[in-house]
C-alpha cells in the first residue's frame, strides 16, 4: 500500500511535460490532483514509473468566459469549479455533479481534467458535460485538438488522446435560449459515494413549448458515457409530459449496458437508469422553462 518506486518530473511548461510523456511512454502518466492516480499506484493498478506533474503549470488553472463559451482549465479543482461565479451564472447544471461527487477533501484535490482523462465509467462530470456539448482541448507539440466528449472516451480508463497529448481545458459552449439541463445520480449513501447510475439530460424548448432538441447521456452504466440517441428521437418535436418522459426513460433503460458489481446488479442499475432519466428530464424541463420565460 505504498506508491512504488517512481520518478517525479515537475514540469512548468506543456512542452516539457509532453516531451517527458513521449520519452517515457508507456510508463509515464500525467499527475494532477492525484486522487485517482495515487490509488491506482498504491493498489498496483497503474504500471507507471514516471509521474509527469503538471500542477505547476498555472495557466491550466481557472475558469474563463470566452467567445466560444466557458473555458475550464484542466487543473481547476472540483471545489473551485463548484464555487465559480461564471459556472453559477452560465453553466449551472454542472453544479448538479460538482456538488454531489466524492467528498470535500477529494473535491479540493481532484481536477476537472483528471475527472475526464481518467475515463472512469462512474465519473460524474462526463455525462453532464456531454449533454452541455463540451469539448476537451488536447495539447501536444503538434498543436491543439478539440475533441467533443463523445469522441473522447474509448472505454474504461481509455481515451482517444495520444500518449504525448495533455488535456489542458474543457470548453463548454453557451447554453442556447430555452435550454435546460440537469444531472441526476444514484449512490448508495449520501456522503462520499460513487455513482451507481447517473443520467444527464438537456432539453431545448421552442417558442411553442415543444422540445426542439434533446440530449440524454448516462453515467456508470456503460464502458463510456452512454448517449441515448433513441431518447432524442422520442423527445424531439413533442410537448413534454409524463408519458413522453416515460418513453425516453424506457429508451434509456434499453440503451444502458450496465455491469453487476458490489454496488448493484445490472438489473438494478437498469431500473435506476429509468428513474434517473425521468428525474433529470423533469429538472431539465423546469430549467428550460425558466430559461425561456
Amino acid at each position, binding site marked *: 500500500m505504498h506508491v512504488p518506486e517512481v520518478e517525479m518530473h*515537475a514540469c512548468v511548461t506543456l512542452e516539457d511535460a509532453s516531451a517527458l510523456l513521449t520519452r517515457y511512454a508507456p510508463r509515464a502518466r500525467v499527475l494532477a490532483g492525484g486522487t485517482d492516480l495515487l*490509488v491506482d499506484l498504491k493498489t498496483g493498478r497503474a504500471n507507471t514509473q514516471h509521474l509527469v506533474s503538471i500542477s505547476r503549470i498555472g495557466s491550466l488553472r481557472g475558469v474563463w468566459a470566452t467567445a466560444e463559451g466557458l473555458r475550464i482549465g484542466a487543473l481547476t479543482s472540483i471545489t473551485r469549479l463548484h464555487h465559480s461565479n461564471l459556472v453559477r451564472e452560465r453553466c449551472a447544471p454542472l453544479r448538479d455533479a460538482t456538488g454531489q461527487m466524492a467528498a470535500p477533501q477529494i473535491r479540493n484535490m481532484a481536477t476537472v481534467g483528471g475527472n475526464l482523462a481518467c475515463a472512469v465509467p462512474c465519473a460524474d462530470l462526463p455525462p453532464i458535460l456531454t449533454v452541455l456539448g463540451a469539448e476537451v482541448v488536447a495539447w501536444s507539440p503538434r498543436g491543439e485538438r478539440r475533441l467533443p466528449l463523445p469522441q473522447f472516451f474509448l472505454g474504461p480508463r481509455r481515451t482517444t488522446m495520444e500518449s504525448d497529448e495533455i488535456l489542458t481545458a474543457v470548453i463548454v459552449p453557451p447554453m442556447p435560449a430555452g435550454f435546460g439541463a440537469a444531472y441526476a445520480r444514484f449512490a448508495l449513501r449520501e*456522503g*462520499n459515494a460513487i455513482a451507481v447510475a447517473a443520467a444527464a439530460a438537456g432539453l431545448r424548448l421552442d417558442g411553442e413549448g415543444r422540445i426542439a432538441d434533446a440530449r440524454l447521456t448516462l453515467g456508470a452504466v456503460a464502458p463510456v458515457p452512454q448517449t441515448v440517441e433513441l431518447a432524442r428521437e422520442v423527445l424531439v418535436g413533442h410537448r413534454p409530459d409524463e408519458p413522453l418522459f416515460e418513453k425516453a426513460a424506457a429508451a434509456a433503460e434499453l440503451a444502458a449496458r450496465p455491469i453487476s458489481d458490489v454496488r448493484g446488479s445490472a438489473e438494478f442499475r437498469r431500473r435506476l437508469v429509468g428513474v434517473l432519466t425521468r428525474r433529470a428530464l423533469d429538472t431539465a424541463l423546469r430549467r428550460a422553462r425558466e430559461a425561456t420565460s
Partner: protein
Amino acid sequence: MTSLRTLRVNGHDYTLAVDAGATLLEVLRDKLGLTGTKKGCNVGDCGVCTVLVDGEPMNSCLLLAAESAGRSITTIEGLSRNGKLTPLQEAFIHEGAIQCGYCTPGMILAGTALLRENPAPQVEEIKEALAGNLCRCTGYAGIVRAVSRCENYRGDGTCGDRTAHDERDGQGNGRAPYRDPGGKPFAAVGVSMPRVDAADKATGRALYTADIALPNMLHGKILGSPIAHGRVRRIDVSRAAALPGVVDVITGADVPDTQYGVSPARYDEHVLAKDKVRHVGDEVAAVVAVDERTAERAIACIQVDYEELPVVLDAYQAVQEGAPLLHDRYPRNINTHVEQSFGEIEAGFAASHYVREEEFTGNTIYQSPLEPHAAIAYWEHDGTLVLYTSTQVPHYVQYMMAHVFHMPLGKIRVIRPAVGGGFGGKAETTPLDLCAAILSRRTGRPVKMVYSREEMFHHGRGRHRQHMRFKLGVDREGRIQAFKSEIHLDGGAYSSFGVATAYYAGSVIPTLYHIPNYRYDGYRVMTNKPACGAMRGHGVPQPRFAFECLLSMIADDLGIDPIEIRRRNAMAPHTRTVNDMDIGSCEFRATLEAVCEKSGWDGKYGKLPRGKGIGVGCGGFVSGAGYCIYRGQVQLSHEKGKEPFQKRSIFPHANAVAKVSEDGMAVVLMIGAAEIGQGSDTVLTQMCAEALGIPPARIRMRSEDSDISPLDLGAYSSRVTLMAGHAVARAGYAVVEKMRPFAAALLQCDEADVAARDARMWDQRSGRSVPWEEAARKYFNANGPLVGTGCYKPPDGLGGDFKGGTVGTSPAYSFGSAVCEVAVDLETGKVRIERFTDYHDCGTPINPMAVHGQVEGAIVMGASETIFEDVQFDEQGRILNPNLHGYLMMTIKDAPDIFSGLVESYEERGPFGAKEIGEGSTLPVLGAVAHAIANATGVWIKDLPITPEKILRALKSREPQRGPEAPAAALART
C-alpha cells in the same frame, strides 16, 4: 528517486530528502513525527489523514509530499498556539464529539476550514463539510453539536452554555443529581464531565500504537494466502530474503507448533500456516525489513506453491455430507452445536392462538474501527517480552502470548496505547502480536507491524452472518407461549469467539420478554472465509433483529399495536428467565412508554403516507460476562491441570490500585481496563473519585501498562463499567478507610463519623472538616505509601446447570427501546433514516454524556449495518470490497437525528447503581430500522442488509399481487 524539498508545515519550513513516491502523510508522520495526522485507509476513503493545504482540507494519503512543497500545510498540531486550544477543539472536548479520537484530528481540521469560511454554519452545511470524514464511534451527533456550538467556546476551556446534555436526559435543565438508594446525592458520578483523554485526542497528542517509533525498530509484513483453501506445498523465500533491506523472513516452519485462539477447547490457529490455508488472507509467511515499504515488496517476492482444495462459502452447504472439510477435528464443518430446550416447546405451540414461522438472514459485518490493528514487540535482555498492541483485551493477549511461547505471564508486559476503536474486532491476539514477537526475538530489534485496511478485512473477526429459522407462538392477546430458534452461524475458517457467539445467539433472547417455552439449536459452521468473532452485541444483534421483526409481524397480523405487544411481554425486574438468567433491575417497560410518547408513536404508526415509515425495536445486553474466557487461575495454560468447571470465578475479573501522592494532592489510579474509545478511563476516574471524595481532576489514570496496572479482563461483554467500576470504587474506599483514623485525629472525632467528600474529610457530627490531602499526608508520615486496592468477582453460582448455561450470565442486564423513522424512495428503494428516539435503562449513568455518546454511536453503527454494510465474497472466497469505498459505513450525511434518553433505574449489583450501555444500545436498532422500512413500503426484507435493490425487488414481486403481505409461511391456528 529522492530529492530535497522544502515543506512548510504549521508555519515552519522543513527541508527534507523526500522520495518521489512518498505521500505527505508518510512524511508528516515518519519524518516530522507529526503523528496527529492518522492513517486509516490510505486511499482517501476515511478522512483521518486530513490536513489543510493552503487552508483547504485534503487527504494527505493522496498527496505526494513532493507535490505539496511550496504550499502551506496545517496539521492538528498546528492549530493550538502555545498550548492554548482553539474554540473548536474545546467544543469537541465538551460536546462529547470525541470517543476513540482517531477521526478527531481530521474532523477538527475539516471543521476548522468550514468555520473559517462560514463562522455560523447550518447543520446541513456542517454535514456537507464533514462528509469526507468517517467516524465509527460517535454517530456524528456530538460532532455536529461541537461544530454548531463552537461559537460558545472561547478557547480557554470555558463555555457560555453547557446545558445540552442535561436536556437530553428528558429532565429539563439542571437535572437533580443522581443519588444513591439512601437519597444521598453523588458528587462525581452522574456528571457529564469531558473525557479525561479528550484534550490529548483533540490536539493530536494521543499516541496510538502505529504512532510509536522505537529506536532501531524494524517493520514487518505478513503474506496472506491468495486462495481460500489449499495445502501449502512449498515456500521459496530466497528472493525476498535477498532483497536489500530485508532482515528476516519466517514461514510456518519457524513458528511454534502450539495452536492458539480464544475458546480454550478450540485453539485451532497457527501463527503462520503449517499445512493448510483456509481463507484468502490466511497467514503464510512474514518478513521484517528496515522499513514497511521494503517489507511490502519482500512479501510480494515470496513464492508459494499451493495445492488448491475445493472451497465452501455457505454455511448450509458446509454442513452437507461430502462438503469440503476445513478442519479434520470438526466433522461436517460443525464447529459447535448448541442444543438447548427449556419448558415444553411443542405444548407451548399447541397452546398458542397464533404461530408464525419465518426465515431471516444476517450479513457479514466488519467492525471497521478507524485505527488499523498494530503491534510493536521487543525483548528485554532478561527475557521479558514487551508488546505494544492495539487491543481491547491486554490480559488475554498476555495469556495467549504466554500460551504460544510457553513462558510465564509474568514475563510478558503488554502496553495498550490509545486505541482507535475496537467493537470486538480487537478482542483477541492477532498474528501481528505473535509475528512481531517472533521476529523481534530472532532479530534482537523492536519490530512494528501494522495492518492495512485490506488486511484488516482479511484478518476478520467481524459479526457472524446468521441464518435464522424462527417460530413464535402467542396467545390471543399476543403473549408469547413458545419460541423456537434454529440458527446456522457462518463462522469463517477458525473458531475465534465462535463457540461463545453460538451460545449468545440463543441465551440473551429470553432476557427481554417472558418466554415460557424455548428451544434453541445453534450450529456454528466453518467456511473458507476470514474467521468471525465477537462484534458489538456479540452474537445477539441478528437474532434480536429477527425476533423483533417477527414480533412486529405478529402484532400486525393480530391487530395489536407493536409497542403494546412488547408491553404485554416485557420482562419484569427480579426475574429468573426460562434459561436461568438472573435479571435484577429492569425498567424495560419504562423505556417502551418513553419512546412511545417521545416519538409521537400513536399519531404516526399506521397513519403515515406510503414511503414514510415508523418502527420499533428493543434489546438489551449483559453487563459483563459472568465467567472468564479461560478456566482456572492466572497461569501458563500448559502448566495447569485439566480444570473441572466450577460455577464461581476463580480470580477477580477486575483489580485496581489507587495510590495517593505523598503530598496528598493527586491519586494515581491503576487498573488494566482497556480504554478503547468507549470512555472507560473517564467513568472509572469518576467512580474512584466518588469513593475517594475528591474531584475527578485529582485522579490520573494509568490503565495502559500491565507492569503498572493490575489485571482487568478488558473491554468486552460490556463489563467495564460494572466490574472495573466496582474495583476502582473499592480501591477508593480502601484509601479512605486508611485515612479515617488520621482524619479523626485531626478533627478530634470518632472514626466512624468521618466521611470524605469535596476534597475534605468531614466530621459528619460537627460539620467540621480538614483538607483531604492533610489527612493523606498524616497517613504517609506515619505509614509510608497510601495505597488502596479493590477487586471484583462476579457473584458465585450464575447460570443454570446445563451445557452452555454460563454464557449470557451476568450480574446485571440492560434494556432499551428505540423508535426509528424513515423515508423510502419507492422508485429507487433508497432509505433515508430520518430520526431515532431511544430510551435506555442503563442503571445510574456514571457519565450521561458518555452514555448518550454510546447510544448515538450504536444507533448509527446499527443503522449502517442494517442498510449498508456487508462483506461480499466472490465464488473463490475473495473479498470484493475490502476497503471503505466498497464496504459502506454511514457518513455524517447519512446519520439520523437522534434523541437519546434514559429512564430512572438503579442496579443493586452495579457500582453506584450502574449497568452497561455500550453493546445493549446496538440491539434495538436493527429491528427498529427493518420495521420502519416495512412500515414505509409494505414489504418486509428479511435478509440483511436491507438494500435499495432488495426493496425494489420485493416491491416489484408484490406488484401483481394484491393486499397486504401474506407470507406463505404464516400459519394461523385457533
